[in-house]
């Protein structure tokens, strides 16, 4: 849910915006009725434009979660369709080295905007859960301590949610190759680097090449 208001504080500041909006309309109206109408149309347009833009954007928050216990290395992995890719598994094993490592995998429930607004995300979550279960199974089979969860459809938001419960030392984001990855098109890697004060490794998994 992308809402411009998230709290009482947001609603309080909206009160002042409404006061300013109304004062400008009344002043315009008192000068000339048509001017008042013009001010109303322009301000309403600006408000809608700003509301839509803000709804699409992210709040730039650089988060630095508390460090994990010193005897344990923690890795947060974000991947969906590429969650079972051999490149990702190899990268995780390399990162883990010989250390005691805990892996937490977040698999965003990818849903189309049309389905989000007209239906529910149960199917998207079920598909993500199936991929996650398979991926966790393969990680555990090679001796990795792995847990996982289904996350928000937006991978950046999914990372932020996961950071509230899991305190990683580093992030690994897995995507399709450039040209086939929607996440890369949407700048997920850049936005994540900007938003989270954690080392981030980008792993490219080419599922087509792996199958052939």
């Amino acid at each position, binding site marked *: 849910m992308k809402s411009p208001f*998230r709290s*009482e504080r947001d*609603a*309080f500041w*909206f*009160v002042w915006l409404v006061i300013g909006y109304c004062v400008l309309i*009344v002043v315009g109206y008192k000068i000339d009725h048509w001017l008042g109408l013009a001010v109303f149309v322009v301000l309403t347009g600006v408000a809608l434009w700003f509301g839509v833009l803000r709804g699409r954007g992210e709040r730039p928050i650089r988060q630095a979660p508390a460090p994990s216990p010193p005897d344990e290395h923690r890795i947060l992995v974000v991947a969906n369709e590429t969650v079972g890719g051999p490149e990702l598994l190899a990268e995780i094993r390399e990162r883990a080295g010989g250390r005691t490592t805990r892996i937490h995998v977040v698999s965003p429930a990818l849903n189309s905007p049309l389905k989000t607004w007209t239906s529910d995300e*149960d199917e998207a979550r079920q598909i993500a*859960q199936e991929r996650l279960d398979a991926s966790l199974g393969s990680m555990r089979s090679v001796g990795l301590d792995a847990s996982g969860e289904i996350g928000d459809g937006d991978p950046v938001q999914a990372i932020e949610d996961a950071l509230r419960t899991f305190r990683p030392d580093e992030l690994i984001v897995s995507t399709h190759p450039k040209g086939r990855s929607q996440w890369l098109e949407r700048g997920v890697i850049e936005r994540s680097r900007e938003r989270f004060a954690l080392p981030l490794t980008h792993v490219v998994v080419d599922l087509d090449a792996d199958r052939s």
Partner: protein
Amino acid sequence: MSAAAEAHHHGPPPIHYSSRISPPVLGMFLFIASEIMLFGSFFTVYFFDRVANHGVNGHWPPPGLHRPVFVAFINTLILVTSSGTIHWATTSIKRGNRAGLQAGLALTFLLGLTFLCTQVIEYHRIGFNTSDTSFAATFFGLTGLHGAHVFVGLTILLVMTIRAFRGHFSPEHHHGVELGGIYWHFVDIMWIVVYVTVYLL
């Protein structure tokens, strides 16, 4: 939930949500969205009446009917101030300041009560009644609808204030204050729109 656990699971599916917005706050915003639609229907009637009658009479409001603009302006200031006090209350509990919460909520309640009493007194002194003209009907309809919302808000504020004095809220758990605050800001915003539309334009 794993596939095995899901096979034995009965009842509704497990709750899942993102931290973008908490479900109670989302619920309050959806409720407010429905309220805006309700107010929207009243505003539609008001504007229709104005457009339909303005050309015939050339005056708005109809001659002989005077709106208490100044008293309503004072009432507007009271309600805007109450938004400030409830924001102070919410900020206070987030910082662990219980005295600030209690004072903020009590002040907000008193300001809201003052607003409502002033409006009731103005209704008695205004000099026209609902059956006099279509303007009078829409005037009482819009301001009365808002007054009803202030009454609901005061009831919520009373419960919040009693709970605050009983120590029910803490910096970690204060959803009751947050949601009540959002509702009260909505009541304030609607009054500003009603005041501008009905009294000034």
